[in-house]
């Protein structure tokens, strides 16, 4: 039971980069790993079990302890505020959280409206700026909101800025940098300390080589 780790992986964009990182760290993951549509993948030889979750849900699985560790974007951690250890900056899937809107537009003075997938982040940010805003939670295609007059601004992650550009939006402020992080359940961190320390050390080596 305690000699095996369950890792929650985010499906989609971050997944491939995370798998590559694990391979570089010397974990032998089978080639069919990348194409599999299974939600749970056992890698017996390494004593690892992977669960594939929506990126927004990774921190939830880890907080509840059904996954010992997880790979989650900093954007998710800021939004969800789960009780997990954030042990390592994996420096993959770099992007940033930003406020954007139509060019040369002003926010409504009375009740500016902000459309976002990140209601907590957006609210905290505007409150820190001394602005009280109305948050409109959307689940995707956030760029649409200012275009059709639903909101004055959006708060979203920006990686290349292409989506904003193609939709005629401009960036107003940067809220914070986002990369993927290695997160750990507080109980697993103590009970499976040796396994987790090894994972952290191996990943840390790979990550520091990449940067310097």
């Amino acid at each position, binding site marked *: 039971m*305690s000699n095996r780790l369950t890792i929650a992986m985010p499906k989609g964009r971050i997944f491939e980069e995370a798998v590559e990182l694990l391979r570089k760290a010397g974990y032998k993951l089978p080639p069919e790993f990348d194409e599999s549509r299974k939600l749970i993948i056992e890698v017996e030889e390494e004593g690892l079990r992977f669960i594939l979750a929506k990126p927004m849900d990774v921190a939830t699985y880890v907080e509840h302890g059904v996954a010992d560790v997880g790979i989650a974007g900093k954007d998710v951690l800021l939004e969800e505020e789960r009780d997990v250890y954030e*042990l*390592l900056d994996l420096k993959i899937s770099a992007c940033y959280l930003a406020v954007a809107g139509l060019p040369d537009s002003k926010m409504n003075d009375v009740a500016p409206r902000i459309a976002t997938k990140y209601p907590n982040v957006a609210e905290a940010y505007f409150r820190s700026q001394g602005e009280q805003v109305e948050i409109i939670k959307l689940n995707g295609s956030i760029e649409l909101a200012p275009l059709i007059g639903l909101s004055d601004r959006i708060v979203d992650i920006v990686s290349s800025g292409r989506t904003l550009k193609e939709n005629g939006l401009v960036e107003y402020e940067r809220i914070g940098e986002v990369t993927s992080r290695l997160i750990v359940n507080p*109980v697993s961190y*103590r009970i499976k*300390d040796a396994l987790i320390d090894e994972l952290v050390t191996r990943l840390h080596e790979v990550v520091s080589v990449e940067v310097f």
Partner: protein
Amino acid sequence: MSRLFMFEKPLGMRDTLPELYEKKHRVRSAMAETIKLWGYQFIETPTLEYYETVGAASAIADQQLFKLLDKEGHTLVLRPEMTAPIARVAATKLLEENLPVRLAYSANVFRAQQREGGRPAEFEQIGVECLNEDTVSCDGEAIALLISSLKKAGLQQFQVSIGHVGFAQELFVQILGTNGRATALRKFLYEKNYVGYREHVNSLQLSSIDKQRLLQLLHLRGGEEVVSQANDIIENGKGKQAVTELQELWDVIRDYGVDEYVKVDFTIVSHMSYYSGILFEAYAGNVGFPIGNGGRYSLIEKFGKNTSATGFAVRIDMLLEALGSSQLVNTTHCIFFSQERRQEAFQLVQKMHEQGKQTVVQDINGVKDLDAFSKKFADTTYLIGGRIDE
């Protein structure tokens, strides 16, 4: 206002149905039995307390308290934990003689949940407090008793991590100079954000040795050897005292013979802000949250006694989850009777009860679906119709 459904309960409140009740009862009894063996006396305190006294002394965040007003307009709280009420009782009633007092409790506490409606807002804690006794032996006793009672409850795999509130605080002050400048680091440590912690340390104007000392703190968890590692990065003063206390605690725990369950961890920082010295948490491998925690606190100061205490609390619901789903064996017997043999049935059931056998006595005319009803029992006896001559 929208209409409530008849079966709805307030958010986070739960019913305990027979099977769960029985399981809780067994776990509670096993723990309580051990606690009593160690000479701790159980007490009860009121469910409602004044907000100004217990509410304010408690370490539970204000927005997590259930508050209400009494007739005079005083703010009351549903007790969010048991440590503050016990400190109140002890300070006002039991500590007059200035002797150590060993108390225990098993009670429901109430905490309004912030997220994900439906997480329990009322749950049972069982725990002990040893008051007016400030030796490390007493901290060791709390930990040994915690281990002993968890074992008695049937838990096989678990771990207790011990730490010291004073160590990290003192390390920060030694290196950064003032308490104020340590705030950022404390916050990162408290939020478990080690990435932020490391980035912050690297951004500080410090010698590389001092940076290394701050980063080393994050690795201070493991066996007894961690204590001497901690000793290497701290200078004299209160920090050393924390290390000395933890070494002494380790020796006490070893003398109790329970060191196989214990690990040292200087990175534990509890949300319970009243802890002042040694603190600990208990984990079971299959539950994602700590099943219990405890430590030394000086809470009693708030109630006008200058003394410290140590104790622990275990969450019964978490412990049950850790114990897994063992099926209870149904041993209840049922005697069905009809009018003619009623007296005979009552005599039989009385005999069964005297033998300590769980037995239901049921008028057969009161059951519509006899097959379905009989399945609920381990065994059945029918005393119906005319008397059979022997």
